[in-house]
């Protein structure tokens, strides 16, 4: 068939769908240590930590240094695993007030951002920097790092070698991370599991639509459902069928 080499597409020659899968995979936010980020290898446009692809990450650390410039604030955030990491936060020059407040050194923060490398120096471009109000979040972050990297690496070794490629409509056994009784079920949140179970239970050829999901999952908002669908899709549990609003499970019988 014509789909065999497609990296992520189903139903299209692989161009647009492949890109979409690529983008949704890197929409996962992975908790990391600074040492992991410094050790990440750059492969074309993306980064890998022990073969796990990362783009958006969170770190938790203490601000050692803060420097305000007209268009950005440069922080150095230290989580004890290595030297402090440069974290840049772009400032909206049109907006006065809240956005431009500099977090003082000595504050513990959680940073969410994109990993960047320039002239071999790694840094983060932050889209969110939040001072921790409850220091137990810092403990939780340590545990989340171990958990996330363990699951992500195990998924790589136990899954089939071409995770996002579905070679034909008839074969469901080749499904990415969802098949074979590997870890993923334990890695899903309650919302993700509910959405996945609903999609699995559907036997029609075009699959379940986002509208169907909204109608049946009253407790979940549209955006929660959409986020769950994007996560499940990027992990290989589900794939889109006639359009981006319809999904089937890779595990369906």
């Amino acid at each position, binding site marked *: 068939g014509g789909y065999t080499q497609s990296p992520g597409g189903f139903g299209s020659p692989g161009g647009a769908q492949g890109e979409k899968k690529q983008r949704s995979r890197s929409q996962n936010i992975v908790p990391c*240590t600074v*040492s*992991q980020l410094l*050790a990440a290898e750059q492969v074309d446009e993306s980064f890998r930590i*022990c073969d796990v692809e990362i783009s958006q990450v969170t770190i938790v650390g*203490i601000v*050692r240094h803060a420097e305000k410039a007209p268009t950005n604030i440069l922080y150095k955030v*230290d989580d*004890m*695993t*290595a*030297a*402090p990491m440069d974290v840049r936060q772009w400032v909206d020059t049109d907006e006065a007030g809240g956005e431009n407040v500099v977090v003082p050194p*000595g504050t*513990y923060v959680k940073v969410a951002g994109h990993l960047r490398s320039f002239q071999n120096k790694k840094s983060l471009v932050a889209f969110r920097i939040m001072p*921790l*109000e*409850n*220091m*137990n979040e810092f*403990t939780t972050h*340590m*545990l989340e*790092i*171990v958990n996330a*990297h*363990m699951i992500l*690496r195990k998924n790589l070794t136990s899954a089939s070698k071409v995770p996002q490629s579905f070679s034909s409509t008839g074969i469901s056994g080749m499904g990415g991370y969802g098949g074979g009784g590997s870890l993923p079920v334990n890695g899903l949140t309650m919302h993700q599991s509910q959405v996945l179970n609903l999609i699995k239970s559907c036997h029609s050829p075009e699959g379940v639509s986002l509208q169907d999901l909204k109608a049946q999952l009253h407790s979940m908002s549209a955006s929660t459902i959409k986020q769950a669908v994007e996560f499940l899709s990027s992990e290989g549990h589900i794939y889109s069928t006639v359009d981006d609003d319809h999904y089937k499970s890779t595990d369906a019988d």
Partner: protein
Amino acid sequence: MGDIHEVPRPRIAAEQLAQHIGRPVCFVGRVMKIHSSGKIVVLTDGLGRHTTVELSEPLEEEFSGVIEVVGRVTNQATIMCVSYVQFREDKSPFDLELYNEALKIIHDFPEYYPFG
């Protein structure tokens, strides 16, 4: 503040001090006793074990919170502190026992939580 903040500082519990003599570490504990100078303090970790720390700056007398110390372990398995921060507990108390559990996990899985 010196070079110690540019290198990895493993997070350890009191029972690991002996294995890190001479090395930079990061230690979190609750203040149990403060010497009159304010600079020698005894901290307790999540397992209730005591560690003596010589601070870089004196602590105020009445302080009984949690501090995170960066410093070097001395030959006597105490810590010579280079810098420390107080953990805020104004909104929620810090669960030191949970932190000790987390330490066990990161020490059991250094491949997922590397220092350096």
